[in-house]
C-alpha cells in the first residue's frame, strides 16, 4: 500500500541511514586482516582482540558519519601500518642497553614507529582543505587503534610508547602548518 508523504519521507531517511551503515563494510573489513596480522605475530590475544573490537566500532561509526570523519579511515589505516608492522620485524629476544637499562628491541620500535605514524598523520591532516580538525581527530584515532594491535606485542608499555612517539611526530607538523596558514 502506498505511504503518505510524511511516512515516505521518514522511510526514505531510514533507508538512507541503513544504506550508509551497510556501506561501512567497505571500510571496516580491513580490521579483520589487521587483527590477523597482530594475532599471528604474538600471543597477547586479549589485548589484540580488545583493540580490534574498538577499531571495528570506531571505523564503523566514522564511516557511517561520513564527510571528513569518514575520509579519515583509510589514511588512518595507512599511517597505522607503521606501528602495526615495524615492531614485529625485531628478532625475537633481541635487546639493547640504554642508560644502563636493558630494553627489548620491539619495545623500542614502538615509539619509533609511532613517531613515523604521527608525522604521516600530521602531513595528511595539513593537506585537508576543509574539516581539518575532525579529519585529524579521526585519523589519529584510527592510527592509534591500528598501531595498538601491532604494539600489543610489547604490552601496555609498547602502546604507551607508540602514543608518545605519535604525538611527538604529529603535534609539531600540525602546529607549524597552522602557524604558516595564519
Amino acid at each position: 500500500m502506498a505511504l503518505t508523504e510524511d511516512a515516505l519521507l521518514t522511510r526514505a531517511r531510514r533507508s538512507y541511514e541503513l544504506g550508509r551503515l551497510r556501506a561501512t563494510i567497505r571500510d571496516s573489513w580491513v580490521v579483520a586482516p589487521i587483527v590477523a596480522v597482530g594475532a599471528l605475530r604474538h600471543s597477547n590475544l586479549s589485548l589484540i582482540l580488545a583493540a580490534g573490537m574498538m577499531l571495528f566500532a570506531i571505523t564503523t561509526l566514522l564511516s557511517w558519519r561520513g564527510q571528513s570523519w569518514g575520509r579519515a579511515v583509510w589514511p588512518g589505516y595507512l599511517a597505522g601500518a607503521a606501528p602495526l608492522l615495524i615492531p614485529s620485524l625485531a628478532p625475537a629476544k633481541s635487546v639493547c642497553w640504554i642508560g644502563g637499562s636493558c630494553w627489548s628491541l620491539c619495545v623500542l620500535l614502538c615509539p619509533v614507529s609511532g613517531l613515523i605514524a604521527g608525522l604521516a598523520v600530521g602531513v595528511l591532516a595539513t593537506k585537508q582543505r576543509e574539516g581539518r580538525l575532525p579529519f585529524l581527530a579521526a585519523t589519529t584515532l584510527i592510527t592509534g587503534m591500528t598501531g595498538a594491535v601491532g604494539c600489543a606485542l610489547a604490552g601496555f608499555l609498547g602502546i604507551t610508547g607508540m602514543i608518545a612517539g605519535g604525538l611527538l611526530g604529529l603535534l609539531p607538523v600540525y602546529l607549524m602548518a597552522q602557524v604558516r596558514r595564519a
Partner: protein
Amino acid sequence: MDNAARAELHRNMQRLADGDRSAFSPVYKALWPVLRAFVVRQLPPSDSEDVAQDALLKVFARASDFDPEREAVTWALGIAAFEVRTARKRAARRKEELVEQLPSGMQTASPEKAIMDRNLEAAALEVLGTLRPSDIETLQLVASGRSPPLARATFRKRVERALKRLRLAWRTKHGVD
C-alpha cells in the same frame, strides 16, 4: 527538469553520498517528482505509486554508493527502471499463477479465453438438458468413445438424429449455429 536543476541535484547527491545529511531534503524534493512521473508513464495507475515509492527508497538506500562520475538523474532513473521491470515481471507471474489455478481442461492461452470457454460449456450443457434422455445417452457414448451396445449402423443413425435435435435446440435457444 532543466540543466541547472540537474546540475544542482548532482551536486546535492554528491554531498549526500559523502554523508552530508543537510543535502537530504533538497535531493528528496528534486528527485521524488521525477521518479514518480517516470514510473507513472511505465505502469498502470494501480501499481505505479507503490513502485515509485519503492524506487525512491532504493535510491536513498544506495545513495552512499553513488558514483560522482555518473549523472545523478540518470543513475536514479536506472534504479527506477529496474523496479519497473521487477514489478512487470511480478505482475506477469501473478497472471500465470492465476491460469495455473484454473481446472486443467480450462488452461488456455489467456484468462479471457478461459472465461469464454467456461461460458460456452455452460450454454452447451443447458441446451443438452433440453434433449430426450436417449439422445443425451447417445451423445455421452460418442463423447466417452465407448463402444455402443447395439449395431453400428443403428448407432450411427441415432447419433445423426441426436446431433440434429441438438443443433435445432441450440438454434432455438441462441439463434445461431
